[in-house]
């Protein structure tokens, strides 16, 4: 990430959102909204003095800590953030949200005078030839499956929250502790929460088996607690993965083959996990101090909006649709727009790196050619026959047709050759090349001959 931040050819527009995309392959115009962080990026050194000085201390649930810790109104997202700059949370900041009722200690603390509450959002227009969408994923909200009682006990946490517990920079300094601050004696780990589930997501989220076993390993390593791992199948498909599975078994983790069906919060605060052990053929229960729910990877909440912006459709699982599931995993049906990483499907780090490298290579290959090859099966307007009614403009799924001087014009780079315009045109003034009316009628006559 640091390399990306420093590279002379890379301009990082952090804290920004894409507002509008127009154009076509090789010639995109992207309008980006730069949200105000109320900190002048060029001046801020990420020293953290403002964070220290902030009067609204430890009041806002920290996004990075997955809700397991709190942050201030002005904050640096995490210690390794790129760019390492402070940002003001406008909704929590007393000065911004409560009509200026704040002593602004942050401003005083900043030696570089980098804090600027007058900052406004800015718009930037970028001319680019290719776009790579790498908008990632979010975790499934386990509260949607009430049988796990997520949220009813502070000791029922999801996988990301567990990661924060084991992180040296996390809320417990890397110690695995219950909410009461005790070292757990027994921990349950439940696979497939929201994955492989007709009620939530039918697909397998691919990465969770491995990190669930990592969690089991960490619990054994750091606390020696008993670990009960409730799984349906173990997906250990990668390099060294199966070997890790064997090692974790050797470390004494109890693998129970049965989907964790219910987590009961007992009156004494302990948690009981119920499941059917398919190998034993009977119901089992585990009374534990902590339950880790390994939740599904799901698409980002704004994936609809993102799809509309970039002209991307989605597959049945809700992630962005690739051009071909086997042969074109990083391309999309919109030429010049590529996909990298989990926004296309759940995948782990090595797979994401490979996928993203591939997207970068495709984008580079596209741009280095200087010209774009398009299929010849595009639509063409006969200007003499066209009366400029614009019906074709409305019909085109790719907005590839526009009206200029009362005549329709097809952008051949955007046209995908579906021919819907040719069918819609009442005057037949627009032709679908290589699937012309004459050709189709000839086929009709031919098959009936």
């Amino acid at each position, binding site marked *: 990430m640091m390399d990306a931040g420093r590279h002379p050819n890379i301009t990082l527009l952090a804290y920004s959102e894409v507002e509008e995309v127009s154009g076509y392959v090789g010639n995109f115009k992207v309008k980006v909204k730069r949200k105000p962080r109320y900190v002048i990026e060029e001046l801020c050194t990420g020293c953290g003095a403002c964070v220290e000085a902030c009067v609204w201390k430890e009041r806002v649930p920290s996004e990075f800590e997955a809700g397991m810790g709190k942050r201030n109104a002005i904050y640096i997202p995490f210690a390794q953030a790129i760019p390492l700059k402070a940002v003001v949370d406008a909704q929590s900041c007393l000065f911004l949200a409560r009509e200026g009722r704040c002593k602004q200690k942050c401003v005083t603390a900043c030696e570089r005078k980098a804090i600027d509450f007058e900052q406004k959002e800015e718009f930037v227009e970028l001319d680019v030839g290719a776009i790579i969408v790498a908008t990632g994923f979010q975790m499934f909200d386990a509260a949607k499956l009430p049988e796990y009682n997520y949220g009813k006990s502070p000791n029922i946490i999801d996988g990301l929250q567990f990661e924060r517990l084991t992180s040296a920079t996390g809320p417990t300094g890397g110690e695995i502790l219950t909410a009461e601050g005790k070292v757990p004696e027994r921990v349950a780990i439940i696979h497939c929460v929201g994955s492989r589930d007709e009620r939530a997501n039918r697909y397998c989220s691919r990465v969770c088996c491995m990190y669930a076993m990592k969690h089991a390993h960490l619990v054994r390593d750091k606390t020696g607690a008993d670990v009960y791992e409730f799984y349906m199948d173990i997906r250990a498909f990668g390099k060294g993965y199966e070997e890790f599975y064997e090692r974790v078994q050797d470390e004494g983790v109890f693998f129970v083959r049965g989907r964790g069906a219910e987590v009961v919060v007992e009156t004494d605060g302990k948690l009981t996990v119920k499941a059917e052990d398919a190998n034993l053929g009977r119901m089992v229960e585990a009374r534990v101090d902590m339950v880790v729910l390994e939740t599904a990877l799901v698409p980002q909440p704004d994936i609809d909006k993102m799809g509309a912006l970039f002209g991307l459709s989605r597959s049945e699982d809700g992630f962005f649709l690739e051009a071909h599931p086997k042969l074109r995993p990083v391309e999309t049906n919109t030429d010049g727009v590529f996909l990298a990483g989990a926004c296309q499907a759940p995948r782990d780090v090595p797979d994401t790196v490979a996928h993203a490298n591939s997207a970068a290579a495709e984008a580079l290959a596209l741009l280095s050619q200087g010209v774009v090859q398009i299929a010849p099966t595009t639509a063409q307007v006969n200007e003499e026959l066209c009366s400029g009614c614009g019906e074709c403009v409305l019909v085109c799924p790719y907005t590839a047709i526009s009206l200029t001087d009362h005549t329709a014009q097809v952008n051949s780079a955007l046209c995908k050759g579906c021919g819907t315009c040719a069918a819609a045109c009442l005057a037949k003034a627009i032709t679908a090349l290589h*699937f012309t*009316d004459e050709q189709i009628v000839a086929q*009709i006559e031919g098959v009936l001959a």
Partner: protein
Amino acid sequence: MTEEFEPRIVAFLCNWCSYAGADNAGVARISSPPNILPVRVMCSGRVAPEMILRAFRAGADGVLVLGCHIGDCHYDSGNHRTAKRIPVLRRLLNYIGIEPERLRLDWVSAAEGNKFAQVTAEFTEAIRALGPAKQHYCATGR
């Protein structure tokens, strides 16, 4: 000896879904009636009412338009227009006395070889029951 009427049915198949679905049926050795005469288009949205009429004019007893399921169109929403055009044309045919059942619209995906076979078999029998369409048309030849 009476000759049994063998319906001739022009089927407009979209390249990405229904045409592939027909292939799928073939590869899986699932039988479909030989009465189906396929015409491949890139998208079911390409099928204009004028073309359907031309098929009838040229001697088709029935016309089948098969596209991608709504939401799965390779071209995003080409099939939306088909979904609206065909019902209107069917109603119009009905008003002038031609059986609307001679024109059918359905959705068959690339993996639905079974559905292709089922739809084509059903449609063929339906047209067989209706009889030749020539009785309605006074086309003066090709």
